[in-house]
């Protein structure tokens, strides 16, 4: 029997804060949008690898472990189910018309940078896996994965494209038109003003968006997970149910 999570507030705060670590690395100049893609993809892959066997068991009643499917087989199936949509996501991140080769060649890859991204993603995944094994329901787990894929896919896509446009503008020596007072762009105007006042570029703007939404999603879904837990009928410090 695994130990339950006994402090929902600490769990929620940790879930939010660790998802802001990649943003700190972006602000420190160590990461960009491609690194964020690696970091969060590793975490999402782990989330899906946990959620898929549970979903199969919930829908079909088939327990892979009881049917004698070896652990390695379960990992292979889950990995394939994860890799297909994620490869598509990675290609989509650079636009459907571009190729994966262009993405790789356009990036300033280095071993240290890739290792740092994978290590950061694995750290997030370790905490995600820890929570998923201790009472997160299948619905909340899948909801988490779907929302995070949505944020990551669109965030990296638009972030990369915005950075390219900004580079084009800078190269041509053109001035940005004023967008802060434009009609119908309240959110955008707010973001642009906030990033400009901090002296940040579009790629950092996108990173703030991605990491911020990841942290918000994790925090809120962790709260929902605790609210939906039968054990949480007791005092606030009650624990999550334990997966047996």
């Amino acid at each position, binding site marked *: 029997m695994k130990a339950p999570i006994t402090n929902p507030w600490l769990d929620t705060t940790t879930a939010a804060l660790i998802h802001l670590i990649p943003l700190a690395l972006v602000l420190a100049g160590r990461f960009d949008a491609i690194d964020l893609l690696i970091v969060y993809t590793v975490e999402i892959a782990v989330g899906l690898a946990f959620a898929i066997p549970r979903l199969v068991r919930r829908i079909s009643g088939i327990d892979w472990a009881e049917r004698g499917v070896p652990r390695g087989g379960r990992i292979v199936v889950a990995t394939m189910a994860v890799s297909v949509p994620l490869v598509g996501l990675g290609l989509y991140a650079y636009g459907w018309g571009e190729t994966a080769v262009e993405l790789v060649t356009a990036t300033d890859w280095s071993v240290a940078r890739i290792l740092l991204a994978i290590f950061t993603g694995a750290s997030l995944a370790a905490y995600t896996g820890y929570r998923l094994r201790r009472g997160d329901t299948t619905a909340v787990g899948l909801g988490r994965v779907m929302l995070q894929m*949505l944020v990551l896919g669109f*965030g990296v896509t638009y972030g990369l494209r915005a950075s390219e446009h900004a580079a084009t503008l800078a190269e*041509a020596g*053109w*001035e*940005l038109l004023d*967008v802060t007072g434009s009609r119908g762009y309240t959110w955008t105007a707010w973001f642009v003003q906030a990033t400009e006042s901090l002296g940040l570029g579009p790629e950092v703007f996108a990173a703030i968006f991605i990491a911020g939404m990841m942290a918000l*999603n994790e925090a809120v879904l962790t709260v929902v997970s605790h*609210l939906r837990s039968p054990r949480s009928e007791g005092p606030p410090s009650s624990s999550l149910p334990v997966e047996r």
Partner: protein
Amino acid sequence: MSSTPPTRSGRRTAVAAVLIVGLVVANFSFISALSTFERVLAVQSRIPGDQATQVCQNAARRALDPRAHAEPTVVDLRYLGDNTAEARTVFAYSDRPDGVIRCTFALEASRPPQLTVVDLEVVR
């Protein structure tokens, strides 16, 4: 007719539902904002500011004060969305008109960019 007070479990479910709906709305709002940001940059990266200025100056001179020799000056350039932008032009030394001319452009995503003035308005 009597109503049953909500149970603790029911309230928790309701709070969870509200949180999830709010979260989904927030995600789509932020994605929409980021996509708009990207689209604004995409259009603007195709507009040389000096070309927009020249087009607005010429249009204002032809339409409003063909005999004056005053030099109109574009003081503000603004993206409106839907591939349009507007510029405010001031005739600094002209007697007529003495206000601000606002030009609205249609922007065509071509290289080099094509700018067409679709509207002129005098702002007193």
